[in-house]
């Protein structure tokens, strides 16, 4: 049971810190913000990797591989696109 409490408190604490920090993000960064957090949710790739830590059947291997691929897609694509957007934000205006 203490393990459960620990996990719950990790969730609650990080949620609250995240809430405090993110509510200060200016509206003009909302799209990159969503894109970055979206990439972070690709953390499920860890769970997918752990599926392969024990021997398993073909079905599990197939599902696991699919899970890894889609989580990696989310992860890499999300961070890359956020970076691309933020690079645009940084660009100064052409000399008018």
């Amino acid at each position, binding site marked *: 049971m203490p393990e459960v409490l620990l996990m719950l408190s990790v969730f609650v604490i990080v949620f609250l810190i995240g*809430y405090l920090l993110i509510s200060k993000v200016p509206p*003009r960064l909302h799209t990159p913000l969503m894109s970055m957090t979206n990439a972070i949710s690709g953390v499920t790739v860890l*769970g997918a990797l752990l599926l392969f830590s024990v021997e398993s059947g073909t079905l599990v291997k197939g599902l696991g591989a699919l899970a890894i691929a889609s989580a990696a897609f989310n992860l890499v694509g999300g961070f890359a696109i956020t970076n691309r957007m933020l690079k645009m934000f940084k660009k100064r205006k052409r000399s008018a």
Partner: protein
Amino acid sequence: MLTDFAIIFTLILGVWLFGRPRNARLGNLAAAAALLCALGVVLYRSPVTEPVIVVSALALGGLAGWAVSVRVNMTQIPAMVAFQNGAGGLAAFLVSFVELARQDALVTTTAKTAGILGLVVGAATFSGSMIASGKLAGLVRQTPIVFSKHGSILLGTAAVIAIWGVVAATGAGPAVVWSLSILVVLSVLLGIVFSMRIGGADMPVLISFLNATSGLAAALCGIIIQNRLLIACGAPVAASGSILTYFMCKAMNRRLIAVFVGIQMQAKPLGSESAEDAPSASEPASETATVPTSETPRQQDPFVQAVEAVRGADSVVVVPGYGMALAHAQFETVRLADRLQAAGKTVKFAVHPIAGRMPGHMHVLLAEAEVDPDMLAEIDEINPHFPSTDLAVIVGACDVVNPAAIEVSGTPISGMPIMEAPNAKQLVVCNLDEKPGYSGVDNPLYADPKTILLLGDAKATLGRLLENLKPETQSAE
């Protein structure tokens, strides 16, 4: 334990850095680094049995993600984000599925409950995001698709899922795989029914909400496999999604429930999507727009009027809307603003929080066109300045400047804070047609004598406008 803590700390640091535009890029990289470390740590702690499969799946997914992210243009960003969100949901529910199906003796009741919840949330996020992505990419009809008794179907599906979830959790033996599969199908159905009825200007709320649920699914997934990193990474995503959902609802002055249940969306037949959303209805500008305004004694070409108005104005506010995104007119819009500023005029962009199809969408588009950040103004900042503004240029926006939101009660947009562009001394509207916006509420602004309507494709209209402004202001590029 300490490594985990360091990774979580880096992640939070990334989120913190993100708060300021100057550091945002560093924040994004910090978060990416945190996840890369997490990946390394997990691989180091529990070596995989099938390195070939694992590595190729990682490479395949990662490369695909990279390739898409390099190619996508900024108008497609909402569809892209929704799609990635769906991919995350898919991974989350697959992991929960496999873990539950394995029925390890170790699995506790808590883990089982979390697993079932993660499965349902993940699968519904997956299908909901895919529908949303399809709508945003124009593959699925963008208007809300409402079944008769839609609410009952939704609630019924949710109830069946709740009951079936208990069945699946208490079951044992090979039958579990089947009951879990049925649960997945039901949850996928729930996601589809849920997001189908949301459309158009409500998309930012839907995407924000799905963003939150994907974080939740990841955290729940972390509980079943008892992995702190997953929980800690899912939490800020859930937080961010919740905040954005709240912001978007507030910007429309609507309650979340009203958006999801779609009670208010019955004002007009569904055919009338945003004025700017109906490419088929493009008409030649001169024909429809020759309705003489009361100020002009003779019938004058509205285009000539617009050129004069732009030349004569000292202060200009540009209000962009989703139509600008659809017409890919952000470059022309920014060029116009730059040129006017170079000619010594005061130019501002008034960006409504719900303009576009996801939170902050307009800002990304304008940034793509290399807008001067100093020109951007939020709604509260700019509204008091409209009465002293000589000219408001509306580019593909309708509902966000519709005075009916303030003056008429009982419409779907009543009570929504708008950009008070109607208060400006003169207006130039570059919209595709005169149809009402997504809300279906007619915009009295179109008939206002101080409005000059330039109907047609905004990119072409602005291009012509730029062309005609050249002689006076010289080439300012």
